[in-house]
């Protein structure tokens, strides 16, 4: 190993050296307030827009356009009885919502709302960002990963079946989509050369990465939806299947925290998308050219940022209004067999192109042509390889694959094994299926077959 040298923490990003501890407290509190208000607004926003999609009005009674409808909804939760279920693991049951909400709040600490501004009525100049790390992107992934513990532990500690299923699903889902998400971010890091959010924003003065790295952006969009359990990927709390998923046994403020965390998480991933792909607080192109980038200075960028942020929020609502819930196997297939390979290939592609551009003299045009050719070739090859279909009963009888850790095992081995639920819940066999020996097993392994539930009303109080 060649000894690495001491890194120079080069700061092309925001400068926080002038921040005092008091200012930090103010900024943090401001973020907190911003998030709480945003959630309240998001609730109204979502209901209104879904109303529009469904040819109805949505909440329109309390306040102008029904704007304050969310406040009584939130207060109602506060006033409800705080139930702790008998079978619950008391400590973890209470900690879980805290984890969720804590992690949700933490991510906005690294989101740049804007460049350095002068705070009104003072002469303090400070960036519109709480803090920035050299590893901000990693921090985001880390906190996002940690947030899942809230869901997992919450579901597990309830000591009840539906929450447990929800939490397990949620685990599998989050880890599946987190991979695609982190892979899609790699290409941004390659071109930006930094993991600091403010530096990444600064690297997008010429071109937004959502344009240059469109495939990565698309992958990010899909996986962020999966990451925050929104339709069409809301399997952990799928009402039609799991009642309310991991929140089934929660009530009052504990439920409220989960609920809050979910909406803040939507804001989080939207903010990250804005920062990493949409130029952050930078003004969109025609505006950015106006008057020497006048709109990129002062308090203007906050506006651009919010617009972009709420653009993504709208995207979430639009998806919810439009799409049906995936079946679990479709969902996992999409994650593992489409998103991850594509993301991987994309990373390699970006790296190679970037490498050729930086380290050789080959012109970009030649390179792109070569790449296009390679892609076509790859596509052809991909079409030629048939996907191995482990047809349920057939393969066992014919080839005798060597110990595939797969399909029939759950049906056979598991069924033979210890069955805690003898005489469990009857589930009718589907067409072409015979009743497996253990009814409970069948229920766990094929949960999504109940058909897509189309209930539009979400977890509204």
């Amino acid at each position, binding site marked *: *190993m060649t*000894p690495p*040298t*001491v*890194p120079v923490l080069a700061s092309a990003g925001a400068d926080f050296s002038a921040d005092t501890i008091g200012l930090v407290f103010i900024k943090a509190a401001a973020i907190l307030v911003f998030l709480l208000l945003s959630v309240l607004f998001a609730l109204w926003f979502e209901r209104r827009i879904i109303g529009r999609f469904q040819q109805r009005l949505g909440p329109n009674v309390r306040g102008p356009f029904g704007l304050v409808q969310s406040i009584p909804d939130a207060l109602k939760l506060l006033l409800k009885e705080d139930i702790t279920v008998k079978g619950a693991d008391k400590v973890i049951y209470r900690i879980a919502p805290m984890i969720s909400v804590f992690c949700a709040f933490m991510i906005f600490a690294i989101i740049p709302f804007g460049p350095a501004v002068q705070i009104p009525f003072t002469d303090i100049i400070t960036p519109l960002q709480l803090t920035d790390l050299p590893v901000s992107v990693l921090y985001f992934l880390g906190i996002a990963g940690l947030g899942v513990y809230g869901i997992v532990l919450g579901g597990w500690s309830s000591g009840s079946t539906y929450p447990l299923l929800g939490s397990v699903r949620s685990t599998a889902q989050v880890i599946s989509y987190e991979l695609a998400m982190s892979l899609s971010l790699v290409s941004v890091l390659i071109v930006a050369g930094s993991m600091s959010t403010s530096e990444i924003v600064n690297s997008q003065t010429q071109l937004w990465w959502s344009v240059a790295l469109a495939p990565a952006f698309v992958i990010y969009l899909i996986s962020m939806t999966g990451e925050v359990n929104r339709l069409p990927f809301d399997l952990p709390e799928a009402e039609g299947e799991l009642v309310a998923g991991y929140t089934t046994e929660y009530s009052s403020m504990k439920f409220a925290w989960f609920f809050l965390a979910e909406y803040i998480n939507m804001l989080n991933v939207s903010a990250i998308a804005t920062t990493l792909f949409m130029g952050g607080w930078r003004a969109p192109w025609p505006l950015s050219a106006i008057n020497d980038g006048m709109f990129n200075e002062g308090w203007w960028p906050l506006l651009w940022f919010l617009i972009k942020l709420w653009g993504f929020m709208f995207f979430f609502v639009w998806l919810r209004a439009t799409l049906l819930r995936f079946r679990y196997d479709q969902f996992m297939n999409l994650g593992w067999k489409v998103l991850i390979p594509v993301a991987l290939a994309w990373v390699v592609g970006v790296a190679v192109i970037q490498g050729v551009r930086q380290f050789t003299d080959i012109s970009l045009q030649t390179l792109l042509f070569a790449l296009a050719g390679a892609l076509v070739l790859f596509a052809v090859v991909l079409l030629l390889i048939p996907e191995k279909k482990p047809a349920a009963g057939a393969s066992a009888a014919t080839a005798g694959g060597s110990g595939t850790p797969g399909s029939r095992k759950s049906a056979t081995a598991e069924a033979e*094994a210890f069955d805690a639920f003898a005489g469990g819940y009857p589930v009718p066999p589907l067409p072409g299926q015979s009743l497996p020996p253990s009814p409970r097993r069948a229920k766990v392994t094929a949960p999504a077959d109940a058909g897509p539930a189309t209930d539009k009303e979400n977890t509204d109080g």
Partner: protein
Amino acid sequence: MTLVHYLVLSGILFSIGAVTVLVRRNALVAFMGVELMLNAANLMLVTFARMHGDLHGQVIAFFVMVVAAAEVVIGLAIIVSIHRTRGSASLDDANLLKN
């Protein structure tokens, strides 16, 4: 808080992990003890890297994380398979080889 405190913390964590492995009878918990030990070592590496002012220790920590992950995968595979067989991950139940 000097860097030495980190070293002490790392030592404490390492000891806790070691004691966990030796005392707890649940394979999963024992295994978590091992992971705690690895992470204690990581903390120590990073602290020393800071002390020496180079990045060796941090790079090593990366490798350790990878190894730990591989260990987790293998360990989980083994523990899960035993759990599925016996419905228990207790080390006391795994004593067929004692005699």
